[in-house]
């Protein structure tokens, strides 16, 4: 199949349609807006629905209704809009509704800027809304991955009855890259024998997250946590790049993961045994990547577009057995390869040549 040139946001929209997404509810916000625009243009042609909601809160709750009715549904936004959706996201998780949510991360806090940022890592992976819930969080780093992971997000959502968040940034959302539009693989997914679509021929169903009896509430919490444990075991994903014989590791996801690859190649040219772990799932965090690469690792640098958020998960993953440092740019700035390599040289006292 031939490749097409699409903007990152358009790639996500195209993948969603090909994954069988029938409904999209959203509200425009830069740098994610091309997603709603592309879908508004193309989804109705195939009998789907795109509705521009009155606000982000409405959009996520419309997703709630459509998912409860059994449909494949998606919403997309950027950081401040995602904050507004957090109430609904907590309810989606509590009611175990499969919805795909896209966050093209702006800078933050507050209104922030439009440049690439990863400042929503905590919000994405640690909750954001109220309660003890988890989202499956996918972090693509290039157009093909935007496409593949968007498609897969729908299957993961259905498989686990859980909202799935696709987390990218303005760099990935706005760039243009060739992408191969693969057809959807038929997954063997569980039947939606919980959906509320009218009780013809069966007993009534209800979808609600209200527990007045503490014993029942605890039972619900335990059920969710058991599901999260299952996801942690089965769905950790990462890319390992020159990590097998590495003495030093970079850890970066998304745009940072992409930049870090060049850093690794440059370091190797200088004889420095640098490798990269690029988390693809941010939740569950790919702890297994570190246990399998731990021997011989002398130090780690996380590369993040925030003040240091993922670094906490990396430290937990290596359990304080190696030093973990942070190289960070913020506010929409991207690190240059040579800055990162220079920092690696500094913190580990390695000879890095010139401007690298």
């Amino acid at each position, binding site marked *: 199949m031939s490749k097409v040139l699409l903007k990152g946001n358009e790639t996500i929209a195209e993948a969603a349609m090909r994954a069988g997404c029938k409904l999209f509810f959203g509200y425009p916000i830069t740098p994610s807006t091309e997603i709603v625009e592309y879908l508004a243009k193309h989804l109705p042609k195939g009998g789907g629905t795109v*509705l521009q*909601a009155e606000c982000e809160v409405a959009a996520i*709750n*419309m997703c709630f*209704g459509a998912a409860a*009715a059994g449909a494949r549904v998606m919403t997309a936004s950027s950081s401040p809009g995602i904050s507004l959706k957090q109430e609904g996201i907590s309810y989606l998780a509590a009611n175990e509704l499969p919805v795909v949510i896209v966050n093209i991360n702006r800078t933050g806090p507050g209104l922030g800027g439009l440049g690439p940022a990863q400042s929503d890592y905590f919000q994405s992976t640690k909750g954001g809304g109220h309660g003890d819930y988890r989202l499956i969080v996918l972090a693509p780093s290039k157009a093909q991955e935007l496409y593949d992971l968007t498609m897969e997000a729908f299957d993961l959502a259905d498989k686990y009855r859980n909202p799935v968040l696709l987390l990218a940034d303005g760099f990935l959302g706005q760039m243009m890259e060739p992408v191969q539009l693969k057809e959807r693989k038929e997954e063997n997914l569980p039947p939606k024998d919980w959906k509320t679509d*009218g*009780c013809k021929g069966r007993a*009534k169903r209800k979808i*609600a997250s209200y527990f007045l009896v503490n014993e029942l509430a605890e039972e619900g919490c335990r059920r969710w946590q058991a599901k999260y444990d299952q996801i942690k075991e089965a769905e950790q994903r990462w890319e390992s790049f020159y990590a097998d014989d590495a003495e030093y590791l970079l850890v970066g996801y998304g745009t940072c993961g992409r930049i870090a690859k060049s850093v690794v190649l440059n370091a190797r040219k200088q004889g420095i045994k640098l490798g990269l772990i690029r988390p693809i799932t941010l939740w569950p965090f790919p702890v297994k990547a570190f246990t399998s690469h731990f021997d011989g690792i002398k130090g780690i640098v996380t590369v993040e577009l925030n003040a240091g958020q993922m670094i906490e998960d990396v430290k937990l993953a290596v359990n304080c057995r190696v030093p973990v440092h942070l190289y960070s740019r913020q506010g929409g700035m991207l690190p240059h390869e040579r800055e990162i390599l220079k920092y690696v040289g500094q913190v580990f006292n390695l000879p890095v040549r010139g401007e690298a």
Partner: protein
Amino acid sequence: MQKVFGRPKGLTEIPFHYCPGCTHGIIHRLIGEVLEELNIIEDTIGVAPVGCAGFSLDFFSCDFVGAAHGRAQAVATGIKRALPDRIVFTYQGDGDIAAIGTSHAIHVAARGEKITSIMVNNAIYGMTGGQMAPTTLTGQVTTTSPYGRDNAVAGFPIDLPKTIATFDGAVYVASVSVDSPKHILQAKKAIKKAFQVQQAGLGFTLVSILSTCPTNWGMSPVDSLKWLREKMIPVYQMGEIKVSEEVKGL
């Protein structure tokens, strides 16, 4: 012996546990009867709010979804857009639909969303223990307006159906009461009409129903009905507030 009265099929066998004298029970029954009479129980999905009305998801025999505070109409929009041939209704208190959910109330009406909203207006927040609602009457004492609602501080009561009626997408808007047998029959007629309008796919329908809260009003059930009749009905525009041309032709 011939059975002459029983629970409508639109209700489950679960006994209501609303406070004595609360009119949620009457309103539930009216909706349950309408679902049965129109033969739409199996085609209907209800959306419950938070607050006392949040319990309604157990009491109706159709599928039901529990929404977050104020979001029932956004959830109903999602269900209806996914399943356009089903009947979708929200059952919301005045706090839910006229305070935290106001934006959704306005926009489902503006879009002509083909759903039905039942607004139960008892001029107070019930489950949270009797706080002021947007619909609380001027001078009415609540736990958060202990000296009576002062318009200079807390603003004026909102007559939501009147506002909703101004939107082109709202095709049938009625305000009724359940304080007397005559009014109960009128209320049933309005509810039935609203569901029939939805069946015909004509647009958004709203039925507001004045209701009592003896517990938080601090009155007996009988005095509550009297208070509703004497104090609330004069404040809120009653009757069929909007019947659009296409609804007249139904």
